[in-house]
């Protein structure tokens, strides 16, 4: 099994606070990997390091063997890593369909100065929107969608760039149980089509049922990793979550 993402002894701090310390982990291609830990344990910082929002102070981040340390976020996205945000971020004034079009890879003059929406791309966008049940809202501005619909749109839009690896930052937070089940199924189906996932989530049921492998962070340090079964019985993890 090849590694899709390798994080090699990465450290990052904000002023005096070390958010991620000497963190090493690797993701198998084609798998769903979970990342859990208490609030403030550095999960989102790690996502920001992977996607180029922050540049790691030390250590290496490699996507399929290539270093992505010094690339800007748009370049990292073009390499095949995309993400959603803990607090949903969309282009609020744009229509649902336009939100789907923006992430399509921008290369060359045709992409820059051609029509904003080519019909083949619109078809692809509509197929994805159908999958998440938003196709009937294609011309609505994104700000008019409900919270759950916004989360689905953010995920669907990210898929338009054809990523190899998708990072999801709390996909199940604030979402009703029916929708959580729907999102889990969607992730599973996409995964079976070859997309790898890296998921930060506090909903343990979600993580344990969905993920093939789980890493646990606490105060910026990786304290455990393993299959969900192993993690669930790991004393260090239980201590972090439940106290002594």
């Amino acid at each position, binding site marked *: 099994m090849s590694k899709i993402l390798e994080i090699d002894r990465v450290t990052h701090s904000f002023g005096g606070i070390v958010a991620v310390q000497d963190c090493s982990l690797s993701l198998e291609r084609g798998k769903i990997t979970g990342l859990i830990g208490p609030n403030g344990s550095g999960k989102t910082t790690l996502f920001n390091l992977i*996607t180029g*929002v922050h540049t790691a102070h030390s250590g290496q981040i490699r996507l399929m063997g290539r270093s992505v340390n010094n690339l*800007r*976020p*748009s*370049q990292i*996205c*073009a390499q095949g890593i*995309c*993400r959603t*945000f803990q607090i949903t*971020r*969309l*282009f*609020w*004034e*744009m229509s649902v369909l*336009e939100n789907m*079009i*923006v*992430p*399509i*890879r*921008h290369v060359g003059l045709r*992409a*820059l*100065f*051609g*029509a*904003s929406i080519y019909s083949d791309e619109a078809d692809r966008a509509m197929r994805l929107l*159908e*999958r*998440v*049940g938003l*196709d009937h809202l294609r011309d*609505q501005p994104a700000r*008019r*969608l*409900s*919270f*759950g*619909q916004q989360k689905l749109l953010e995920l669907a*839009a*990210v898929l338009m*760039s054809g990523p190899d690896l998708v990072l999801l930052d709390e996909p199940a937070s604030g979402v*009703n149980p*029916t*929708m959580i*089940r*729907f999102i889990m*199924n969607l992730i599973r189906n996409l995964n079976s089509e070859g997309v790898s996932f890296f998921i930060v989530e506090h909903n343990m049921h979600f993580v344990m049922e969905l993920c093939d492998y789980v890493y646990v962070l606490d105060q910026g340090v990786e304290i455990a990793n393993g299959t969900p079964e192993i993690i669930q019985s790991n004393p260090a993890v239980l201590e972090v979550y439940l106290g002594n």
Partner: protein
Amino acid sequence: MTLILRRWWPLPALILLLIFPLVFAEPYYHLLGFNVFLFATMATGWNIMGGYAGYRSLGHSAFYGLGAYAAAIAANQLGWNPLISSPILALGVAVFAMLLGWAMLRATGAAFVIASIAMLLIVRLLANNFENITGGAPGLSLPIPPWPPMLSRLPFYYYMLGVLIVAIIVSGFLRRSRFGLGLLAIRDDEGKAEMVGVNTTLYKILAFGISAYFVALGGGVWAYAQTHISPPFAFGITVGVQLILYTMLGGSGTVWGPTLGAFILVPLSDLILFQFGGSPIHLAVLGAVMMAIILFMPRGIIPSIRGWQEARAAPRATHTGALSMEDLQRMQGGKTEGGSPSEAAAAEHERP
């Protein structure tokens, strides 16, 4: 009929503008028309950066002045007619703007606005002090246009109308292009745009250059029409403020907004000027107009009208509550059937 009008209204409007100076033969009307087109062109340019990408420069007069000085110097030193040289020299100004933008566009929000004012003050200082090139504070005179005085401003009128048409076509083309969509994405959420693969730095620099081009072109033609330029007028901040005012009145981020704003406010400020003479009262009235826009029509005329139309057309479609029962059922359908939710919904529908 209304559909035809909706699509083709610019055509009769253009014919009217072509006939206008022949009907109203007074030179004043030709000058007024020229000014309207000039400011509409430049506001359209400003809108590409300020409206589409959301970077509101207060210093665009810098490009106006640079265009004016470039045209004046080329006319005096090389004998180039500004009407021919301006579109070419403006390219140089646009490149210069992109170099400046490369540094300036690291700032966002208020910091960018302040940087843009600083840019204006710096080029003005340069114009004041490089006396052997720019003539210093007294400024530069340009050659008198070669056509007979009888024609007065007529050539300027038609020339600027042509430039305005080009500006609107370019602006409309950009608005519909992938590039324009990227600019709108930057306006909505720059960080997110970068994260989904838009090279925001490249987009902003390009937009800044295109935006500066039309302002510089306007400056060059203005210098020729004026026949004399000096730093306070070529690099005055009011030109930049006017561009913003017109764009905001018509509708920032729309293709026609800047033009509409200029067509309303340029004649209006002339009218006020006639009413109250040369006193600064007309500036106070413009200030009041600006406040009224911000208070009652913060998005400008065109977006406000569109908003009203939308609200009237679909008053019930604006439901923003949680997912409807129907949505949830579709999703559950998707889960149990294993297919897409819509397929499941369709299957549900076909059942007797």
